[in-house]
């Protein structure tokens, strides 16, 4: 059976928003931990959560200061914030409903049920005390959806478009976290390679659910080079840029084979992936981490657009 361009688009965005809901929850988790320690001399920790999520402008349009409760509410519940947990899940579910004939019954139900459950949970304002439980709920629902996806979906182009959405979103998220926190990792703030007060660093790893796996991969000390390497270039780390691009390139390769055609988006993806393979961590830092990330985020967006064009997500006028 042929796959409609609109359906491919719906699958792609459904998975981007499922991924985003969870990323938002994880950012809040990291923000909350830093706030709770009172160690933070940075009053703008909550602001950096908003910047990482790319919604600072939307927030500033509604609120003046970075009061924790307001930020948490904005990130969890606010429908005006397209990246809030509630809005993300709503968008994911609306897309899922539109493309439900392409989903396994189990996957559709997992998405629908997650939306129902979390929407109900967010109906009343979430207090600081309830926040950890809510974040946990969002993460568990995400795991349910992904698990159902992995175990019930046919490995065809539908699967590939879902993966493309999930991993392009995830790469974007990891890159943004790096970009917001890069000042913490740069030489003027620390001697690259030296062991440091590790609290902030651990919070970065926590925001990508990787504070334990980091210890397995490196020597246990928090070093800037290692953390940057881990989040950017380590292909065993499931949220690193390099890992995301392993999956993205693979998914596009499956599509090439399936449709027997190679589109420009495939070339774009291999170029980005190659750049990640060629990069050495020292060179990247010396050449400017911020600049590298900026280019990456731009290219990642460009790839998403090309995928949409090449696989006819939208009608062309």
């Amino acid at each position: 059976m042929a796959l409609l361009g609109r359906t491919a688009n719906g699958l792609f965005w459904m998975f981007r928003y499922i991924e985003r809901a969870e990323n938002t929850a994880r950012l809040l988790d990291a923000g909350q931990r830093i706030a709770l320690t009172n160690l933070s001399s940075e009053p703008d920790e909550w602001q950096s959560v908003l910047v990482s999520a790319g919604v600072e402008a939307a927030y500033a349009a509604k609120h003046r200061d970075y009061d924790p409760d307001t930020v948490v509410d904005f990130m969890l519940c606010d429908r005006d914030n397209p990246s809030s947990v509630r809005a993300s899940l709503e968008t994911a579910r609306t897309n899922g409903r539109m493309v439900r004939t392409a989903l396994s019954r189990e996957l559709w139900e997992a998405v629908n049920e997650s939306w129902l459950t979390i929407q109900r949970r967010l109906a009343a304002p979430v207090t600081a005390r309830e926040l950890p439980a809510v974040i946990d709920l969002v993460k568990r629902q995400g795991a349910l959806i992904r698990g159902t996806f992995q175990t019930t979906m046919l490995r065809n182009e539908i699967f590939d478009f879902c993966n493309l959405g999930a991993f392009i979103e995830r790469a974007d998220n990891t890159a943004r976290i790096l970009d917001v926190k890069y000042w913490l990792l740069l030489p003027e703030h620390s001697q690259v390679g030296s062991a440091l007060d590790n609290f902030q660093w651990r919070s970065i790893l926590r925001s990508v659910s990787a504070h334990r796996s980091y210890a397995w991969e490196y020597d246990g000390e928090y070093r800037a080079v290692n953390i940057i390497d881990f989040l950017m270039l380590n292909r065993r780390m499931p949220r690193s840029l390099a890992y995301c691009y392993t999956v993205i390139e693979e998914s596009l390769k499956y599509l090439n084979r399936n449709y027997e055609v190679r589109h420009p988006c495939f070339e774009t993806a291999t170029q980005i992936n190659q750049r990640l393979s060629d990069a050495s961590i020292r060179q990247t830092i010396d050449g400017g981490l911020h600049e590298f990330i900026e280019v990456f985020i731009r290219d990642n967006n460009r790839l998403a657009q090309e995928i949409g064009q090449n696989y006819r997500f939208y009608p062309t006028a």
Partner: protein
Amino acid sequence: MKSFDEMLIPEGDVRDPYARFYEWFREQDADALGEKAGEAEAFFRRTGITFNVYGQEEAAERLIPFDLVPRIMAKAEWDNLAEGIEQRVTALNAFLDDLYHDQEIIKAGIVPERLIVGNEAFLEEMRGFRPPGGVYTHIIGTDIVRCAENEFYVLEDNARTPSGVSYMIENRETMMQMFPELFAQNRVRPVETYPHHLRRSLAAVAPPACDGTPTIAVLTPGIYNSAFFEHAFLADQMGVELIEGSDVAEIDGRIQMRTTEGYKPIDVIYRRVDDAYLDPKVFNADSVLGIPGIMEVYKNGGITIANAPGTGISDDKAIYSYMPEIVEFYTGTKAKLQNVPTWRCAEDDSLKYVLEHLEELVVKEVHGSGGYGMLVGPTSTREERGSSPRS
């Protein structure tokens, strides 16, 4: 009309088809049944078996009411009913073919011309055109009520874009999961073959332009339509595409859908979009739900539209009152299914009667459908009756 209890006879006995069910039913604990009903609702909610009600912001998606007491029909009753429906559907199809060609029934003085000519549901575009296979009404939703033992009345012949079949199939599925013992004790005819039959019916009317296995698609107005669940359900169960107007375009004399690999022609379209929105080039020019140019492609044999455009002329509430005569005219036999007594408000005496008996009657707009545009007298308030149209 008196109310009719389908399960129990007034003296306290049980009707035969319900005997085993009733025995089971009496053994059940009321609380446990209540719990089961709750489970069923949760299941419907989780599966997204919902429908939308227009004009109600609150609870945009509503559940189909689920009745734990099934409606049981004995085989003999069902066979009678099926025969009656077949007769009626055959007549409706012949009626449509006649209206769009020679109009013998008007010439014979059975149906007045004023009900057809000038009726917005009568499409001039369809005059002289015969759809593939001569089929106009591929899908009809005949609304039936039972008023006594073996006495069925037709309430409406929905010949446009009827909906509801998916809820019936899902209801059955749920009953089977919750009360398997009922199905072990009773011989129940399966209903889940419906999508299979529908697919075959649609494939059987492929247009002249089709070569090979017909490509079939369900056209939906989108996720905000009241019956979107059903559109998705049927497309899924038939294994065909679910498309929206924005997915297709007229290319090289065919209607083609935009796939990830480019445009591919569709042969048969089961549309769940009303006539008025079907083709902005011909009908409502503002429609974004339809497919520009589909009527021309249709008339050139490039696609089959199910149901055919213009079937609405056969099921409006004024035509309904002539159905017994229409059935007899085309089938040569008396109608097996009866109409509910109907007063035509265009006739002065009838109108007078209706206005005097509003509390006992159901009043429908000639062009209303889907439960919109009607007044149910017995459950209405004085205000509602006061505001119902009098001309």
